[in-house]
């Protein structure tokens, strides 16, 4: 029952611009469902979905669960902490067990890059990647794209700078693939120790300082700077990071134009982003969260074989 996206959503790298736009277009009518008093349509009634989270997640897991429930799917959450190696069961055995229970879809979050693909190649069910290691987080990429498209109309020719720990970020990779395919210009900005060595070959511009990045960009997607990066010695201190790369109101004031500010969350206020920016007029951080549910509903709908042209009808509960 492969729909227009194929069997799985593993990343934005394998998708075409048309497929990405299809998801974004489909998300728009679904967004309206969440604005109603009764936030539920019967589109996925009878479908079983497992949310398989091998890594801690609050926002993404809740967002997926709302998306599933608002489409009337039956959902089960499986949270499995700790490294996959230390766990008793292998991922391939987990996959076989899910298959044996005749699951329709699996949403997987895993600490290993390639884990979603690994699962998808071994089971018939649709697999949605909710973040695999440092590879991709495609639904986050899609919701970022939708949020920017809402504001810009089109992403073609727009300049987006991803700020921070690109090396360890699956959000950064999904953004780079998605934005590039939709015709945006992409830059990255962060300490060189947190950028992939080969970043220059990935078709993006590199800024070593935040000031010229702000001057260049139409939007900043500010990544979370994790404390363990400092502990692992990638940067000297969070304090210095904020002083050199922090997105602050003072720096934004000097920009020649108003910038859109995105952040995938959860934020470290005062580290990568200052509160007055996060809470300021150009922040679309909460719009991202709202769009997250809509985008995930669209992905679930399309993977389940839903026809994009019927999304309007699905919204009304008649399809």
């Amino acid at each position, binding site marked *: 029952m492969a729909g227009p996206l194929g069997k799985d959503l593993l990343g934005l*790298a394998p998708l075409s611009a048309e497929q990405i736009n299809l998801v974004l277009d489909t998300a728009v009518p679904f967004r309206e469902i969440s604005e109603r008093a009764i936030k539920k349509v019967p589109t996925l009634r009878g479908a079983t979905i497992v949310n398989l989270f091998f890594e801690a997640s609050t926002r993404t897991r809740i967002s997926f669960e709302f998306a599933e429930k608002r489409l009337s799917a039956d959902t089960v959450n499986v949270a499995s902490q700790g490294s*996959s*190696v230390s766990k008793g069961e*292998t*991922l*391939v055995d987990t996959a076989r067990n899910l298959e044996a229970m005749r699951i329709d879809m699996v949403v997987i979050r*895993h600490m*290993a*890059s*390639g*884990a979603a*693909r*690994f699962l998808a190649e071994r089971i018939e069910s649709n697999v949605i990647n909710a973040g*695999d*290691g*440092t*590879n*991709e987080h495609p639904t986050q990429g899609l919701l970022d794209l939708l949020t920017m498209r809402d504001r810009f109309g089109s992403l073609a020719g727009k300049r987006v700078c991803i700020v921070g720990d690109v090396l360890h970020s*699956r959000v950064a*990779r999904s953004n780079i693939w998605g934005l590039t395919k939709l015709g945006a210009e992409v830059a990255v900005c962060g300490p060189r120790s947190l950028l*992939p*060595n*080969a*970043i220059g*070959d*990935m078709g993006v511009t590199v800024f070593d300082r935040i000031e010229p990045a702000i001057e260049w960009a139409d939007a900043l997607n500010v990544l979370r700077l994790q404390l363990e990066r400092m502990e692992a010695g990638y940067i000297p201190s969070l304090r210095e990071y904020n002083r050199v790369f922090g997105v602050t109101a003072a720096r934004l004031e000097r920009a020649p134009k108003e910038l859109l500010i995105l952040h995938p969350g959860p934020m470290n206020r005062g580290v990568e982003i200052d509160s007055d920016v996060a809470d300021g007029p150009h922040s679309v951080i909460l719009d991202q969260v709202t769009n997250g549910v809509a985008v995930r509903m669209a992905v679930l709908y399309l993977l389940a074989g839903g026809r994009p042209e019927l999304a309007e009808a699905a919204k009304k509960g008649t399809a």
Partner: protein
Amino acid sequence: MSTAVRDLVLRGGRIVDPSQGLDAVGDVLIRDGRIEACGGSLGTPEGADVVDVSGLVVAPGLIDVHIHLREPGREDVETVATGAHSAVAGGFTGVCAMPNTKPVTDNQAVVGFVKRQGEAAGFARVYPYGAISVGQKGETLAELAEMVQAGAVAFSDDGKPVESAQLMRTALEYARAFNVPIAEHCEDMSLARGGSMNEGLMSAKLGLKGIPAEAEEIYVIRDILLAKRTGGHIHLCHLSTKGSVELVRWGKERGINVTAEVCSHHISLTEAAVDGYNTNAKMNPPLRTAEDVEALQQGVADGTIDLLVTDHAPHHYDEKEREFADAPNGIVGLETALGVNCTYLLHRGLISLSQLVDAMSCKPAKVFRLPGGTLARGALGDVTVFDPQREWTVDPTRFRSKGRNTPYGGHALRGLATMTVVGGRIVHRVV
């Protein structure tokens, strides 16, 4: 293998033996496990077995100085016997088994055990490596002298580098008395730890932690300099980068006692094989870039790289069937190496047939002071007969090795060992 066997005449093959500067059609006669005569038309001694090998290459038995047998410790994955069987199926008459067994081959008892298991199996000759340090821990020098007496032909902590430069220096000095090489797995762990593929564009795209070329090269130059200081023989294992080739060239130009090997996979595949998180393309050192592959091929061609090896590393399929970062390193190689080397070096015109035999037989014997590597009268009756033109498709399910972990499954190769003779006995034959 000392039991008397009938005379064996290999008739009418193209004898390629660089140790004697020989490349001519002729016969080879093996008597009592040794080469009795080589070249020309030799007639048929009474009661001799005669095999017509016309149209095929007759070479001194191939030797792979870098393989992993999993015995003792992981007999479920490979035993000395299955590994030695796999070796002769690939045309190898001799193999050097790395010491990262469980327990580690770091004492005369285990060295003797591995050697005896090899003799009992009766396939390829198995020459054990001993560990440089006790338990491969990199702390205390192991008892090298006793291990040499028990049959160890070289020393290495392969799988791990010798992190202490002082320990490596001592090993190089101490081993001089026994005239055996110290073989290094070059990898700066502070740079490489956590990495699972080459660091570059592919690792950036796949979101996998990379191992930079410099992790290898820093150790290559360190060890060359220590060999210069000590006069010891450093042998550099499985080199994978262009920079390493340049550094070895630098060392050899200065007369430093350095030798080097390269694996068949590093002269044939690039990091592109990893795409899709293919764990059968995961190895250490990792597959590198096209530029590295080209430099390694050139290194073999100009002799900077002395030897071709496999780094044969069998793993259970369960262990490879998992997330890329968690899968073990290594691939099996004994049964594909000759085909890969023919396909990617010989048939591309990068090396001659003589060079191929030199890098897979004569030089391994010479560099590791092993018997064999020649068809001169009186030498071991170890012979590999192969058809460099024979085309075949790799089917891992047909391997004699217990391991199936190869990136070459389904690949078309040109070049196949058709007969392997060890001590005058035919131990493998393709009909």
